């Protein structure tokens, strides 16, 4: 059934159809409709879940961790300061190998107060051990929530599904909502192997001497590596059952004969696809890769798509101060070990921080700058800064 949904409600429907059992959440703009809709679903009995109105995001994640450890499928959603308040517990959730799924609405960090989109909130959670999916449309948001549970419960790591503030969270689009029975077939009941159980008392998260700690972290990395193939498999299974696929970790668009490849993520990818099409009509050999997953990083896909190209332009709506755009730095890093003659120069653009629009004109500006220059003159090329 097709519904016209705002991005936030696409998240709620994803959780509903995934039959989550415990939700603990705290409101924050621009995430509120996610949790409002879920509380309504619980109150009306459409969703048989316990909804905990916790007093902070920190407690939301703590409650999800404990609930998941007791064997329930859990869900929460947050944004920006809420996500960064959770930071400690993001490490905990991943370290405890709990397949929690959370939606994060990308919103800039204060000061000054900004409720508009950029990716610094989620990208600063890079090293916590969460998988991260960046979505482009409300349909992808909905589909990614369901895929996320399947991936998380296979590799036993938590997954964050990320969408842009307002550009997606508050924008209405048609979303195809499949039948519950089909989703039930796709996503079997959670059977978490290690749980709090009075019949089999175990201790979870106890003091871990140096003789064991390293091995557990090694296993987390192995699970992240394993996630790569799981993501592709789950995306294929999803396509077979529901007719939609997102290319697994990355989507390539007209890259095959492209000389210049643009790298984008989230809704920027959607705008970029249109600009690529226009430039193709004008005879420019340009293509795009959409970075759907940031963790695990799609190293092989990125290398395959970019090696031998003449130029690469990366748009980052984020910044690691003192270095540069975060996607750009990671892309440069994975290209380092390929043969020098196949290694394209990577132009790193930063644009749209704090929700400033990234329009087709912005993307055209980025592409024409890249076409004009042989090599990037600076580590960061800023777009639209008013001096």
């Amino acid at each position, binding site marked *: 059934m097709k519904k016209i949904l705002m991005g936030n409600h696409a998240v709620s429907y994803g959780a509903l159809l995934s039959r989550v059992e415990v939700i*603990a959440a705290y409101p924050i703009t621009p995430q509120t409709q996610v949790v409002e809709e879920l509380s309504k679903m619980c109150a009306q009995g459409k969703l048989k879940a316990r909804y*905990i109105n916790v007093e902070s995001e920190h*407690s939301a994640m703590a409650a999800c961790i*404990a609930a998941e450890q*007791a064997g329930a499928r859990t869900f929460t959603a947050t944004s920006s300061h809420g996500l960064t308040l959770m930071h400690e517990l993001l490490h*905990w959730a991943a370290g405890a190998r709990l397949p929690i799924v959370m939606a994060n609405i990308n919103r800039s960090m204060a000061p000054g107060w900004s409720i508009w989109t950029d990716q610094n909130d989620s990208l600063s959670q890079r090293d916590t051990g969460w998988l991260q999916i960046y979505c482009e449309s409300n349909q992808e948001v909905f589909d990614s929530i369901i895929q996320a549970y399947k991936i998380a419960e296979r590799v036993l790591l938590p997954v964050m599904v990320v969408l842009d503030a307002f550009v997606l969270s508050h924008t209405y689009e048609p979303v195809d909502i499949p039948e519950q029975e089909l989703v039930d077939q796709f996503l079997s009941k959670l059977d978490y192997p290690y749980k*709090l159980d009075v019949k089999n008392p175990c201790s*979870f998260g*106890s003091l871990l001497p140096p003789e064991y700690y390293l091995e557990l972290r090694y296993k987390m990395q192995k699970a992240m590596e394993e996630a790569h193939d799981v993501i592709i498999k789950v995306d294929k299974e999803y396509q077979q059952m529901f007719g939609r696929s997102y290319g697994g970790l990355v989507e390539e668009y007209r890259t095959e004969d492209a000389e210049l490849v643009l790298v984008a993520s989230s809704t920027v990818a959607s705008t970029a696809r249109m600009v690529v099409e226009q430039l193709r009509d004008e005879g420019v050999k340009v293509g795009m890769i959409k970075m759907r997953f940031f963790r695990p990083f799609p190293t092989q896909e990125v290398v395959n798509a970019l090696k031998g190209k003449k130029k690469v332009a990366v748009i980052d709506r984020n910044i690691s101060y003192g270095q540069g755009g975060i996607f750009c730095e990671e892309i440069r890093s994975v290209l380092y070990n390929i043969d020098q003659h196949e290694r394209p120069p990577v132009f790193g653009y930063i644009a749209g921080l704090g929700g400033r629009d990234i329009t087709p004109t912005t993307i055209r500006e980025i592409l024409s700058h890249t076409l004009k220059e042989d090599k990037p003159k600076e580590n960061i090329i800023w777009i639209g800064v008013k001096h």
Partner: protein
Amino acid sequence: MDRGQALKTTIPEEDYMTSGHIACSGCAAPIAMRYCLKVLGEKTIMVVPACCWTIIAGPFPYSSLKVPLLHTAFETTAAAASGVRATLDIKGDTETTVVGWAGDGGTFDIGIQALSGAVERNENILYICYDNEAYMNTGIQRSSATPWGAWTTTTPAERPEDKPKKDIIEILVAHQIPYAATATVAYPHDLMAKVNKAKGIKGSRFIHILSPCPPGWRMPDELTIKASRLAVQTGIFPLYEVESGRKYTITVPRKEGVPVGEYLKLQRRFAHLKPEDYDTIQNNVDRAYDRLLRKVKQSETL
């Protein structure tokens, strides 16, 4: 008693704690846990944040508890207990008691937000705070449970603690918590009766156990029970309970004619105090006890 007749204990024999735990000698915290679990039984899930009990429970792969134990981040006890409860509820388990078991730092200070949230929601959990009156696990730094006049490593003798101990029970009563009580290991029957009462109540329940810490209190190991008893007898730590957020009952009255000095002089954390400081503490304790008596009286008329 007849010769040959075995001494019979009135404390249940079942134990849900094993020997070999790694608490310091004389620590009251494992004694408190043992008594509580005797009452709570095997259908109990323990949630423990960073505190001395993180260590006492034993490092991986050991556990000194025979019930499931979830270690959780310092400030999250009540939120994590709420999460466990939510899962048990959705799975239809109404029998298991979910216990948050935290020290004073995790309860009075860093965990009070999550505790307030959980109690305001009236989560069906039992929260037990074993209070050794400072951050003992990190090496005796003051907390908001440290009493006036006490030495700690962050309130040195030259400038000892100059704030009164936070009244945690009153904070919880202000939430209209269904049940709140104080206890010490010197009165095990009183402690176990309170745990038993708490076990039978639905909603949030809080038990505050004074937990003497010989290294932190600068006191010989063997004085834990004595110090616990004197805390009650002097009125420094009165044993009482508050039901339905309004009905106060003193369960073990203080003993007339036992001055606070009897308690203070056992512990070198108070060694720097002068006679006039003893007087100040005595006056404060007397006033606080009078206030408690008035609350008891007042609640009889409610």
